[in-house]
């Protein structure tokens, strides 16, 4: 029996729509339409970055920003690699051209730890065996810059275990978190003493007096910029640092069930928002917050967050929708409220936004 062609078309359409509906209903972590839009927004962001890449492959003449932008490409849903051409290989060459004798990867003397941390993460994402030695040397450089007995600091000093920008010895949780991400990405052995010392500093940046021996410590579970001081006043907790702290705790091997992680997550629940960097003045560091928010919640592994009023939020949907609403027509992002911490630089902010979108729209391996 011959099937009428029109009926076949209708049946095919119905089957296709059923299959799409089934896929949508089964998407374990986020709204599939938002995922699709989020990936398209990441594409636009990467398009902006390509348009603004310098001839030598760098962005903003900075190792740190170049490494972040490189990572945005390499970790995207497009799965870019060194096989894809000069827009990937040139930034890698730029990073390698800035490798110093002591292992640092930096174009300047005052941001050596920050730049080296970002460069390690970028080179690890490139997954090339020929970079292993550079990565190992850079890892040793970071370990060498951790504040400890070698610099004359005793374990009871508030700086102990911390890592700062690199041009001075003042450590802070922001640089610490960048370094921890790099050390973790480059697979520093779990029994390396660097982790234990790092944990000392991390918990001294947390407002939790049970685990923080500093006299200023409050008890909301959030994190501040460095022991006893926040750029937003006093030593109060704020969004960017609390997500950086939560991420740092988990990457340092602290279990999700640990009281310090629970306290940090409770702060996140109580201050859940994507409309601002909670606790920060003038929305300073807003995109740093989005970036750290995506990283920490991806690693934390919960699909939804129940805030302290009992409202449930799908963080992926919320973050993607917010970033979509803030993207400029040329595909870039910039902090419209504050230029502090480099957030007037479209290359940096776009790289952060794309990395956040990559994480938010990625299907976690254990979600099926």
């Amino acid at each position, binding site marked *: 029996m011959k099937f009428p062609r029109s009926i076949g078309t209708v049946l095919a359409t119905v089957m296709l729509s059923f299959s799409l509906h089934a896929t949508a209903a089964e998407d374990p972590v986020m709204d599939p339409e938002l995922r699709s839009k989020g990936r398209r927004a990441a594409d636009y962001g990467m398009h902006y970055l390509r348009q603004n890449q310098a001839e030598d492959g760098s962005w903003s003449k900075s190792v740190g920003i170049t490494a972040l932008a490189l990572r945005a490409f390499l970790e995207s849903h497009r799965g870019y690699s060194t096989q894809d051409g000069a827009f990937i290989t040139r930034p890698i060459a730029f990073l390698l051209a800035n490798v110093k004798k002591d292992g640092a990867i930096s174009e300047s003397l005052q941001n050596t730890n920050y730049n080296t941390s970002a460069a390690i993460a970028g080179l690890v994402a490139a997954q090339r065996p020929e970079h292993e030695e550079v990565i190992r040397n850079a890892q040793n450089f970071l370990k060498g810059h951790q504040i400890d007995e070698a610099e004359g600091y005793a374990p009871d000093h508030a700086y102990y275990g911390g890592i700062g920008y690199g041009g*001075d010895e003042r450590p802070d949780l922001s640089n610490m978190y960048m370094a921890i991400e790099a050390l973790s990405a480059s697979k520093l052995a779990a029994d390396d003493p660097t982790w234990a010392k790092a944990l000392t500093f991390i918990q001294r940046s947390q407002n939790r007096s049970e685990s923080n021996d500093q006299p200023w410590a409050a008890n909301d579970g959030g994190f501040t910029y460095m022991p006893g001081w926040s750029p937003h006043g006093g030593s109060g907790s704020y969004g960017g640092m609390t997500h950086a702290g939560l991420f740092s705790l988990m990457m340092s091997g602290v279990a999700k069930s640990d009281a310090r992680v629970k306290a940090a997550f409770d702060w996140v629940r109580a201050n859940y928002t994507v409309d601002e960097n909670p606790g920060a003045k003038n929305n300073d560091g807003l995109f740093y917050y989005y970036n750290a928010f995506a990283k920490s919640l991806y690693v934390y592994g919960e699909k939804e967050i129940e805030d302290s009023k009992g409202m449930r939020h799908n963080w992926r949907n919320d973050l993607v929708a917010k970033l979509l609403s803030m993207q400029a027509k040329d595909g870039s992002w910039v902090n419209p409220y504050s230029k502090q911490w480099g957030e007037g630089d479209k290359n940096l902010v776009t790289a952060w936004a794309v990395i956040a979108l990559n994480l938010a729209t990625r299907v976690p391996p254990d979600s099926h």
Partner: protein
Amino acid sequence: MSSPDPLPSKASSGRRGPGVMGFLWRLLLLIALAETSLFALMSPLGRVPAAAMRLSLAAITLFIAFLLVPSLHRERDGLPAGVLVAWSAASAAAVLLLLAINGRNTLELAATLPAAIAVFAAMLALCGAVAALATLGMGLHRTHRIVLIAGLLSGAAPLWLGPLAATWAIAPEVTVRLSLLSYLAGMVDYDVLRDQWFYQRTPLGGMRYSYPPALVTTLLLAAAGIGGLLAAARRDRMRRGEGVRPFRFLFPLHEESAR
């Protein structure tokens, strides 16, 4: 110099100038004051990074050395350029000596030498500014005070210009490069703007900036200093007929007694 200022009594009385002994006494006083100030500043801070120590020493020495410039007491004779250059060199030597006394970096010449060079260049620039401005007829003492205040304002530029840099009314680079302290910090390889005290008081620490290029800035400062001294010498030579003694490049410590 044709200064309308009433001169200090000892200068106008025709007394001998500071002489070699006066020069040495000032140098010793400079070292003692710088060392005392350093310890007074550092002791409550506990352990201080070596680069921070170099920076503090260089800044304190520069400040005290400029306060004690010997030629200010020889105003009637004009500014002896030789004394100023020698004093700049002595200030640089004092930095090296102080670092050695502190027991740190004694063998790290590569680390301590830039601190001394920076003090030499900055001191020369400050002296050159005094010499050049003094030719405008303001008098050495007044000019010295003006340059001192300008130097202090320049050193503190990150604090008072930092908020403007945060709003991009002026570029962070401009603010950083206007500061003598930033220059010294760049020379000793210490990111002073991200030091805890500065980081907590100026928004510059959270921005992208770079310190003034060491070699170029050193040459510019030295050139500005020499230029200022030359300008003063030329002016004095032109006004010799008015009874103003010419600006000299010899070491004129005993010249007065020979007159």
